[in-house]
C-alpha cells in the first residue's frame, strides 16, 4: 500500500471518527483491476476500502449535489479536475463551501481504461487522453492535502501545454466532410444523457431535454434530434466545461464529446481572451459578461 493510500485512509478515518463529516467520498477497487469506482464511506472501519491508483477517474464533486440537503458536512477527495468541478458547482451556487471538506490529492495522470482492458495488466498502458492534455494536475482548493507540498511543483511541471490539434484536424475538413463525421457520431447517440448526468457544468434542476411540455427536443432518436441535443449541450457548457473528460468516458457509444467542448474552449480563448473554467470562483463567466471591444464580425 502506498504512502498516499495510507494517508488517505488516515485522514478519512480521522474525519469520520471526529465526526467532522458524515461521509467521505473517495475511490475503491471495482470489479476489474482497471476500474476504481467511487466509494461512499460512512464508518471509520471501512476506510480501508479507499484506494488511489491509475484508474481513479470518477470526478467526485458532482456527487456533492446529492448531499445538498443533508445535515452536516461531506468530505471528498479531489484531483485537479475534481477541484475545478468543485469550483464550478460552487460558482453555480449548487453547493456550499463550508459544508464540504476537501482532501486534495495531486494527480500524476491516470491511465486509459479502455486500453488497459485491451492490453492486459502487465502491459505499458498509456495515459488517458484528458490526462495527457491536463494542465491542472493539482487541486486548486483543499482543506487537507495528501503528499508533499513540493509534489505540487513536480506534478505541475509534468503537465503539458494545451493541445488543440484534434480540434484543428476537424476544422480543416470541408463542410460536407465535417457534417459526415459528426452525423456518423451522432447517429449512434442513444440519448442516454449519461454525459449530462456526470457533467459538473450541468447543474440544472430540470434539463430542457427532459421538458417534453415545451417540446425543445423530439422524442425520436434520429440524427437530427441527436444533433440538436449535441449542439445545445455544447452551448450550455460553453465557458463552463472544466475538461475533466467524464462525458466522453461515460459515453457507451464512444462519441468524442470532448471534441465539441474543446472547440468551444478554443474559440472562447481566441475570441474573448484566456479563460479556464473552474479556476477563479469569483470571476465572470465568458457568456455572463461582455467586453465592448469583443471581436466584431457582424457589421
Amino acid at each position, binding site marked *: 500500500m502506498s504512502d498516499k493510500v495510507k494517508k488517505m485512509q488516515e485522514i478519512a478515518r480521522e474525519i469520520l471518527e471526529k465526526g467532522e463529516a458524515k461521509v467521505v467520498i473517495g475511490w475503491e477497487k471495482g470489479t476489474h483491476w482497471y476500474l476504481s469506482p467511487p466509494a461512499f464511506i460512512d464508518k471509520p472501519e471501512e476506510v480501508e476500502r479507499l484506494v488511489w491508483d491509475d484508474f481513479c477517474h470518477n470526478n467526485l464533486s458532482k456527487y456533492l449535489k446529492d448531499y445538498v440537503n443533508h445535515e452536516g458536512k461531506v468530505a471528498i477527495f479531489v484531483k485537479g479536475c475534481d477541484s475545478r468541478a468543485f469550483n464550478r458547482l460552487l460558482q453555480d451556487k449548487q453547493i456550499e463551501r463550508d459544508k464540504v471538506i476537501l482532501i486534495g490529492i495531486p494527480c500524476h495522470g491516470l491511465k486509459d481504461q479502455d486500453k488497459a482492458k485491451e492490453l492486459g495488466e502487465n502491459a505499458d498502458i498509456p495515459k488517458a487522453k484528458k490526462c495527457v492534455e491536463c494542465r491542472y494536475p493539482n487541486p486548486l482548493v483543499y482543506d487537507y492535502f495528501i503528499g508533499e507540498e513540493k509534489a505540487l511543483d513536480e506534478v505541475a511541471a509534468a503537465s503539458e501545454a494545451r493541445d488543440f490539434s484534434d480540434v484543428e484536424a476537424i476544422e480543416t475538413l470541408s463542410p460536407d466532410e*465535417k457534417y459526415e463525421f459528426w452525423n456518423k457520431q451522432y447517429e449512434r447517440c442513444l440519448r442516454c444523457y449519461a454525459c449530462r448526468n456526470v457533467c459538473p457544468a450541468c447543474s440544472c434542476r430540470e434539463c430542457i431535454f427532459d421538458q417534453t411540455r415545451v417540446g425543445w427536443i423530439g422524442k425520436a432518436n434520429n440524427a437530427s434530434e441527436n444533433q*440538436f441535443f449535441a*449542439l*445545445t449541450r*455544447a452551448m450550455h457548457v460553453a465557458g463552463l466545461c472544466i475538461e475533466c473528460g467524464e462525458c466522453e468516458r461515460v459515453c457507451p457509444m464512444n462519441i468524442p464529446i470532448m471534441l465539441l467542448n474543446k472547440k468551444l474552449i478554443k474559440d472562447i480563448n481566441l475570441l474573448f481572451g484566456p479563460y479556464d473554467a473552474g479556476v477563479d470562483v469569483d470571476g465572470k463567466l465568458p457568456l455572463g459578461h*461582455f467586453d465592448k471591444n469583443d471581436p466584431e464580425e457582424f457589421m
Partner: protein
Amino acid sequence: MSVKEAQANWEPKILVFACNWCTYAGADLAGLSRLQYPPNVRVLRVPCSGRVNPQFVIRAFQRGIDGVLVAGCHPGDCHYVTGNYFTRRRYLLMQRLLQYVGVDPERFQARWISGSEGPKFQQVVKEITEQIRAMGPNRKLRDAQ
C-alpha cells in the same frame, strides 16, 4: 408534383430573427422606401437580439429552413443597453460551432441593422437569398421527412 418538379420549383426559405427596435424598424423602413428584395425572407419579431436562443436557430434548421439570419441593433445602440453585446458573444461562438459540425457558413449569419438602415436590410437579405439559392436546399441538421 414529381420530385424533379419539386426541385425545380424550390424556393429558399430564410428566417430572420429581428429585434423590434432596430432591425424590425429597418425592415419597416425598407418597406416604406419601397426597396424591393426577394420574397423568401420571413421576419420573426423579438424584443431584442439577445432574446434569440441558439436553440431556436437549430430548431429552424431541423424543420427545414434553408438559412437563418439573426439581426439586431449595432453595438452601443441596443434599446436594452447591453443585449446585443451578449448576442455578439453568443453567436460568435455559435457560428463557429455550426461551421465545425459542417453547416455551411452562408446558412447561418448575424448582422447589425439599425432602424435607419432600410437599404442595408434590403441588401443583406438579397445577398443571403442569392447565396442560398445558389447552394440549394439545406439538408444538414434536418429532420428526416
